[in-house]
C-alpha cells in the first residue's frame, strides 16, 4: 500500500518538475540567464524531493540511504568535525600536493623545452603516464612519508604532475613560425620570447591541465587516506564511518567534497578567465 503511494507521489514530483522544465525550455525566455539557472535547479530539487519521499514513504533504513534532510541535519551538527577534515585533506593534503606537482611540472617542462628532442619524447610518455592508475602509488608513499598529510601531498603531486606537464609542453609549442620570427626581428632572445610570447600563448593549455588536476588532487588526497592517516581527514572519516554504518556522516563528507571540488575547479576557472581573457573561448 505505502509502496504504491510512494511510487505515485515520486512520479508525480518527477512529472511536475519535468513539465515545468519543458515549459521553461520552450518559452520565449529560454535563453535568459535566469531561466538557464532555474532549469537545472528545478531538476536538482525534484531529484532531492523524490529521494526524500522515497526514503520516508518506503521507510528505508538510514543504514542504506539516509534522507537529504537527515544529511543536512548531520552536516549542520558536525561542522567543526567536517572543517577539521576539510583542513587536513583539502588544504594540507590536496592543495600542497597540487602546488608542488604544478611547480615541478613547470620546471621540468621549461628544462625539456630547451631541446626539441626531449619535448618530442615527453609528450607521449607524459600522456601515457597520465592514463595510468597513479592513485595506486598511495600505499607506497604512506609507507615512505608516514601517515600524515605529507604522504597525501606526495600522492597528489605525482598524480597532477603528468597532466599538467603534458599541457605545458604542448602549450609551449603552440606559437606559429610567423610569431616567433617577429620576436626574432625585434632582437628578442630565448627568455624574452619565452616570457613575452610563448608562456602567454601556452596559458589556455596550462589552465586546461590545471583544471583537470583539481579533481585528481582531491581524489588522490581522499584515496590515500584509505591507506593510513591520522584520526582526521575526509578519506579517514569516510572509510571509518562506512564501517560503523554511519552513512549520514559519509554523505555529509561527500557534500563537503562536492563543495570543495566545485570551489577548487571554480577557482582555477576564475584564474583562467583573468589570465587568458584574450583567448577566443573566453570572449562572450
Amino acid at each position, binding site marked *: 500500500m505505502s509502496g504504491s503511494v510512494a511510487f505515485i507521489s515520486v512520479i508525480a514530483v518527477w512529472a511536475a518538475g519535468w513539465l515545468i522544465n519543458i515549459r521553461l525550455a520552450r518559452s520565449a525566455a529560454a535563453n535568459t540567464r535566469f531561466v538557464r539557472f532555474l*532549469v537545472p535547479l528545478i531538476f536538482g530539487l525534484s531529484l532531492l524531493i523524490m529521494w526524500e519521499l522515497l526514503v520516508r514513504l518506503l521507510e528505508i533504513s538510514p543504514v542504506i540511504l539516509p534522507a537529504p534532510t537527515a544529511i543536512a541535519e548531520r552536516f549542520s551538527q558536525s561542522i567543526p568535525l567536517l572543517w577539521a577534515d576539510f583542513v587536513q585533506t583539502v588544504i594540507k593534503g590536496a592543495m600542497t600536493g597540487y602546488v608542488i606537482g604544478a611547480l615541478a611540472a613547470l620546471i621540468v617542462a621549461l628544462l625539456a623545452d630547451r631541446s626539441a628532442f626531449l619535448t618530442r*619524447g615527453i609528450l607521449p610518455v607524459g600522456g*601515457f603516464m597520465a592514463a595510468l*592508475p597513479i592513485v595506486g602509488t598511495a600505499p*607506497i608513499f604512506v609507507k615512505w612519508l608516514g601517515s600524515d598529510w605529507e604522504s597525501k601531498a606526495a600522492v597528489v603531486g605525482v598524480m597532477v604532475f603528468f597532466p599538467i606537464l603534458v599541457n605545458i609542453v604542448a602549450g609551449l609549442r603552440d606559437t606559429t613560425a610567423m610569431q616567433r620570427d617577429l620576436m626574432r626581428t625585434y632582437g628578442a632572445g630565448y627568455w624574452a620570447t619565452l616570457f613575452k610570447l610563448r608562456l602567454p600563448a601556452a596559458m589556455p593549455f596550462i589552465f586546461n591541465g590545471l583544471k583537470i588536476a583539481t579533481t585528481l588532487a582531491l*581524489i588522490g588526497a*581522499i584515496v590515500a587516506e584509505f591507506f593510513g592517516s591520522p584520526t582526521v581527514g*575526509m*578519506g579517514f572519516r569516510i572509510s571509518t564511518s562506512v564501517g560503523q554504518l554511519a552513512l549520514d556522516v559519509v554523505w555529509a563528507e*561527500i557534500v563537503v567534497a562536492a563543495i570543495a571540488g566545485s570551489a577548487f575547479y571554480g577557482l582555477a576557472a576564475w584564474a583562467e578567465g583573468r589570465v587568458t581573457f584574450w583567448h577566443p573561448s573566453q570572449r562572450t
Partner: protein
Amino acid sequence: MKSLLPVLTVVGAILLFWVVSVVPMNMHLTADQAQRDGVAVTPETPAARQAYSGIGLSLRNLHLIGPTFTLDRPRLPSPHQVALELWQTTAEKKITSKRSLVYHGWVTLSATLLGFAIGTGLGILLAVGIVYNRAMDMSVMPWAIASQTIPILALAPMIIVMLGSVGIQGLFPKAIISAYLSFFPVVVGMVKGLRSPDAMQLDLLHTYHASPAQGFWKLRLPASVPYLFASLKIGISASLVGAIVAELPTGARAGFGARMLVGDQYGQPLVTWAALFAAAITAATLVGLFSLIERITLRRMGMTTA
C-alpha cells in the same frame, strides 16, 4: 616512428633516476642487515646512522651499494626485482592460484569491462536525449559538467556498503563505480560529437529531404565517432581506477586493489609494486587497444586522424 628515439630517451632517463634512487632509499636497511651479517659498516651503531641521510650514508659505505638492489623487503625495489616479481606471479603461477596476478587482474578487469559497457551504453543514450531534447539539455547538462568537479571516487565505499546491505556483493558494486566514472566522459564527448556537424552539412541534408532519423544515422552519428573514441580512451582508464579504488576501503579479497592492500598490510612491498605495475600495464593495454580500434575504424570511415 620519428619520436621513437626521444621516447626511449625519456623512458631511459626515468629508469636511470629510479635505479639511482634505489641506493639512498635502501641504504639504511642494507646497512642494518650488513651489520647483522658481520660486514663492516660506518658508523657502527644504527642510532648513529639515523643522523645521516640516505645519500650521506651511501657515500660512506660504497661497498654496500650492490646489496641495496637485492633486499627482500626494500623501501624502493629496483626495477629488476619488480620485473621478476611480475614474471613469477603471472607466468610461473597457475592462473587459478590465489597468488597469481592473472587471477587478480581478471577480477578487476571483469568489473572494469562490465562497468565500462554499462557506463558507455547509458552515456550514449543520455547524450542522444540531450541533443534531441532541449529541456533535458538545459536540466541535465549543467549537472553533468558540475559532477566532473566532484571527487566521485569518494562515493565508492558508500555505494559498496549500500548495495552490500541489500545483498548485492562482488562484481556488481565495483562495476557500478566503474560505470559511474566512464559515464560522464562519454556523455560530454558524445554531446559534443553529435553537435559537431555544422549548419552547412545540416542544410545539405535538408535539401536532400532527409528525415530526422536519417539525419541521425547518416550524419550525426558518424560525425560523433572521433569524439566517442576520445571519450572511450578516457573512460576505460577511469573505469579501471574506479574498480581498483572500489576494492580498497571494503577489504576485498581479490583484485589489484586487494593486492595493493595486502602488500601494504603484511609488509611485502614487492606485492604492492607488482600489483601497481600490473594495473598500469592493464590500463596501457586497454587504452592501446582502443587507439588501435580507433585508427582502424576512422580509416574505414574515411576519416584519417592527423
